[in-house]
């Protein structure tokens, strides 16, 4: 697989669009569990990134620098709890791809591993807590199983499928972290908004690399 800084910028642009499309849906999910603003929060962060994409990052060719700017921008615009989590993800991922204009499937795999492990370390949530980790952990395990011999795009489809199963598992879980943890039994039956946006971020990556291969 060929993946360039330009593709990374396209990917980020795609996430901007996906978050905007899903803004109300994420708020709706959050209304059942939190204060109903997760879609707004993600939109604030990704719109701030969008500005950088159109300006400072427009011609950036270093994948590492793109990730650093993305992480820092998201954090500065959002705060909240997702700010530090995704910022940590992008900053850890940046280390893997720094000084690279073009990366391999193996780099991309290492990027997402670092990304997810960074988030887990920052947030200290476990599988079963009904958070984004329920999406990210199965994705992480699936990533680690990817063989360098297999087609990366197909391999990443398995990662996204694992993430989806993880996201859907949050419906049956009891919230244990953050504000929704006070809901107790009442949190059961609702899919976690943070797990949902995390899935969208991975799924959009798969969409982007799939589109990339067909041209």
């Amino acid at each position: 697989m060929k993946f360039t800084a330009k593709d990374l910028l396209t990917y980020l642009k795609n996430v901007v669009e996906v978050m905007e499309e899903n803004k109300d849906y994420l708020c709706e999910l959050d209304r059942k569990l939190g204060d109903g603003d997760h879609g707004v929060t993600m939109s604030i962060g990704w719109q701030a990134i969008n500005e950088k994409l159109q300006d400072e990052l427009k011609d950036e060719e270093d994948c590492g620098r793109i990730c650093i700017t993305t992480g820092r921008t998201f954090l500065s615009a959002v705060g909240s709890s997702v700010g530090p989590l995704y910022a940590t993800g992008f900053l850890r991922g940046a280390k893997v791809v720094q000084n690279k204009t073009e990366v391999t499937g193996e780099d991309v795999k290492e990027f997402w591993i670092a990304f997810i492990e960074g988030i887990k370390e920052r947030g200290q949530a476990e599988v079963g807590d009904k958070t984004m980790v329920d999406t990210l952990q199965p994705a992480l395990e699936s990533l680690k199983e990817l063989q360098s011999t297999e087609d990366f795009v197909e391999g990443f489809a398995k990662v996204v499928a694992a993430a989806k199963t993880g996201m859907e598992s949050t419906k049956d879980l009891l919230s244990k972290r953050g504000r929704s943890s006070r809901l107790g039994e009442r949190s059961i039956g609702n899919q976690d908004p943070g797990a949902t946006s995390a899935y969208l971020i991975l799924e959009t990556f798969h969409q982007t690399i799939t589109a990339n291969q067909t041209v």
Partner: protein
Amino acid sequence: MKKLINNPTNVVDEMIEGYIKAHPNHVKQLAENKRSIVTAKETKDGKVGVLIGGGSGHEPAFMGYVGEGMADAVAVGNIFASPPPDPILEATRVIDKGAGVLYIYGNYAGDVMNFGMAAELADLEHGIQVGTVLVTDDVASAPKEEKEKRRGIAGEFFVTKVAGAASEKGYSLEELVSVANKANDYTRSMGVGLTPCSLPQTGQPSFELGENEMEIGLGHHGEPGVEKGELKTADEVAERLVADILVDMPIAEGEDVAVLVNGLGSTTRMELYIMFRKVEKMLSEKGITIHRSYVGDYSTSLEMGGCSVSIMKLDDELKELVDQTADCPMYVQK
């Protein structure tokens, strides 16, 4: 939902703009970060800086508490969302007078991460020592054995008051952390919700309650409480809140307390005083003296209906600190 706003995206920045323009003698906005507000008064060298902060939507908390005898700076977040590390860090740099800075904020996952990152950066990049006190006054949010898991609500006002007064008196950072922790340990709060608020960006209510329902123990972002039920009288509600607080933190006959009956946004002063009337009656019947009372909007949740009751047990040190004067745009004590 009806709100006097312009573009929902700009509510926080436009609020700050108005606030700064309205109170130029008290506060100023940092050029480095528009979400950092510091006291306009030159603070003394060697004074430990007191920095507070959190999401917007709780006005007058937190930015209304910046001024003499209270906080030296505030980092302002988006609606109900922790501020990021940047505004915290910029404000930290400005209010550090060589003796370090104390961070006071409510115990929420986002605040813990963002203030935690800011504290690390303050130390790493600027060599500023930061102390942290997490406010955990809400008895309804976790059992007593897990007080460290509790969220912070209106009692943060008391912790800020005590810390602000102590820093003016020249407490060191270590002493300040200790006295602010004591204020937190001695403070308990519990709230009741009658009507939800709606976030400016979504226009949707944050939770649902029937016309004749109330929720006991809800959080100030609309987090569910311990019990949802039929709306009771003010006396019955006050009785429930005070009783739960006193079970959690027994107060002996002859002890002194400070009491705060805090409105959540759309509750009238009339109702708050009716609530206070009963709180006072219950405490005096137990031989507990209210040394100072505060009634009004101190930590709101946009236009949520309902109130919270906070009680801080006072020893001699806390009593002296609570009595100190304060002069902030949205809170004055002579």
